[in-house]
């Protein structure tokens, strides 16, 4: 399968990169940890106005009528710039909840699974207007003020603060079971695209440092131990990109393959790439890599956050095993 981007897709990718370079540089992203739910509403609206959440929405509903493959290309870049917020939730909710495509309403999303423990975690809760609950029988919308939320002081990822509660009200049904299943698969693929972007961003950060930092009279990238780390990182990125793009194409065209199966493959491969590259990025930075000042931890922590979304690694492995 040819995964070369078309001219239009390159234009979309370059377009979102220009917005992210201008509005979501590292210092700006870091500063968002001080916003409720780590969401900067002004910049969120700018993302929405760019069209990030409405790429796959039909044109007669105000979207661009493009596919999930195009959306995945954009989401890869959002991951690369470690943009915080319920990005996947809003892509799924655009068209279902008023104002999400335009950025005036921000929704989070949780899965109400039978195997979930008693504590329900809602990412970015303090910055949300509503929460969507994905249940096997349908998608329910719950107003945020109907939840009895606690906010842990120290989240794992400062850019993904959470609210926790013990129970969920029924909410208002906004989509039925088949839509919920489809949304879970799409959410999984877009999360994999974010993971792919994280893996790529961590690689770029590591390579830039290895090309600049000198030790024993030469840049550390010339030492085999560092060179091999970087080579492994880019290898993981390329494999993950193929898996993610294939899954995104399968979402648009079922004749290409089973989208749910492809989504599980993408999650496993891209999830591994994000976590492993996050660790290796810290390794390449040496002692500096453990400090808050270096961005390496942003990539690793976000990778860990994504590992919990739309099914764990084990869930996707079991899913693939069951299909064999």
């Amino acid at each position, binding site marked *: 399968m040819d995964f070369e981007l078309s001219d*239009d897709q390159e*234009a*979309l990718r370059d*377009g*979102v990169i*220009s*917005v992210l370079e*201008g*509005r979501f540089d590292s210092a700006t992203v870091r500063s968002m940890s001080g916003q409720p739910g780590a969401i900067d509403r002004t910049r969120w609206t*700018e993302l929405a*106005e*760019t*069209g*990030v959440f409405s*790429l796959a929405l039909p044109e007669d509903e105000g979207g*661009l009528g*493009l596919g999930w493959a195009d959306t995945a290309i*954009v989401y890869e870049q959002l991951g690369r710039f470690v943009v915080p917020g319920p990005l996947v939730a809003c892509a799924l909710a655009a068209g279902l909840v008023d104002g999400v495509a335009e950025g005036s309403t921000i929704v989070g999303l949780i899965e109400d699974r039978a195997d979930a423990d008693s504590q329900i975690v809602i990412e970015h809760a303090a910055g949300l207007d509503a929460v969507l609950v994905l249940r096997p029988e349908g998608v329910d919308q719950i107003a945020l003020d109907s939840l009895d939320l606690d906010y842990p002081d120290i989240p794992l990822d400062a850019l993904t603060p959470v609210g926790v509660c013990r129970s969920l009200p029924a909410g208002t049904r906004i989509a039925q079971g088949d839509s919920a299943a489809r949304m879970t698969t799409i959410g999984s693929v877009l999360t994999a695209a974010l993971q792919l972007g994280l893996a790529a961003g961590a690689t770029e950060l590591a390579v830039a440092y290895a090309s600049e930092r000198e030790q024993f009279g030469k840049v550390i990238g010339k030492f085999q131990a560092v060179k091999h780390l970087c080579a492994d990182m880019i290898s993981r990125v390329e494999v993950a990109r193929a898996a993610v793009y294939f899954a995104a194409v399968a979402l648009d065209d079922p004749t290409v393959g089973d989208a749910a199966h492809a989504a599980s493959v993408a999650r496993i491969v891209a999830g591994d790439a994000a976590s492993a590259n996050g660790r290796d990025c810290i390794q390449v930075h040496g002692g500096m890599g453990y400090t808050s000042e270096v961005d390496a931890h942003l990539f690793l922590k976000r990778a860990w956050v994504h590992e919990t979304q739309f099914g764990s690694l084990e869930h996707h492995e079991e899913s693939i095993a069951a299909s064999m």
Partner: protein
Amino acid sequence: MNVVVCVKQIPDPADPGELDPESKTLKRDVKLILDESDSYGVEMALQLVDSAGGGDVTLVSMAPNNEVSGLRTALAMGAAGAVLVSDEALAGSDSLSTAKVLAKAIGRTEADLIITATESSDGYTGTVPAQIAELLGLPSVTFAKEINISGSTVAVKRQTETGYLEVECPMPCVVSVTAGVVEPRYPSFKGIMAAKSKPVDEVTCADLGIETDAVGWSGARQEIIGIDRAEEREAGEIIEDEGEAHERIISFLEELKVL
């Protein structure tokens, strides 16, 4: 109100360019982008048209090949269309030839106002805006930091070393804007997709009635006779404070005319 914006497509400054040792000019056989200094003019034009409640922004550009990638960026921002003068004979054009070509191209439009950047980021002659105005027989206002339209008059705050001048002139006129005066918008995805289908009127020198030997290398009245590396920046001056450092700092700022 219809506004024409002259824009230039240049090699990406983020990618270190190369000079052609023979022509002593920048190699342009790479993907060209919209000159960032032109994005301010495009943004200002879009805002003026919005304020006027109607009209179009039209781009005018020239290139030796039929490169449009930089134009697409400005079209994605919201410009309605473009006139691109594309002719191999244009390679090597000096600033006066450039102004002649652009002036002819502007003549194909119905412009109430012509906006340019103060200078391009790859040529830096800074003479083209005034040359276009002269060739078109229009008033020229340079270094605009703010433009306001009232009826058929344009009021401009014109940046100077010590502040700004308030000047007015009748339209149509040519106004060059300084960089950084407005924040250029980022093209939306809708804008990017729509830009593909916006009209780019591609014309040649012959279409404009320009003799090819009057432009390009053959028509250039200026010649680049040598290229030298820019001098290394000198080290800063370190002032040891023995109680009088503030006086030296003040006099330094006065030398720069900051104070």
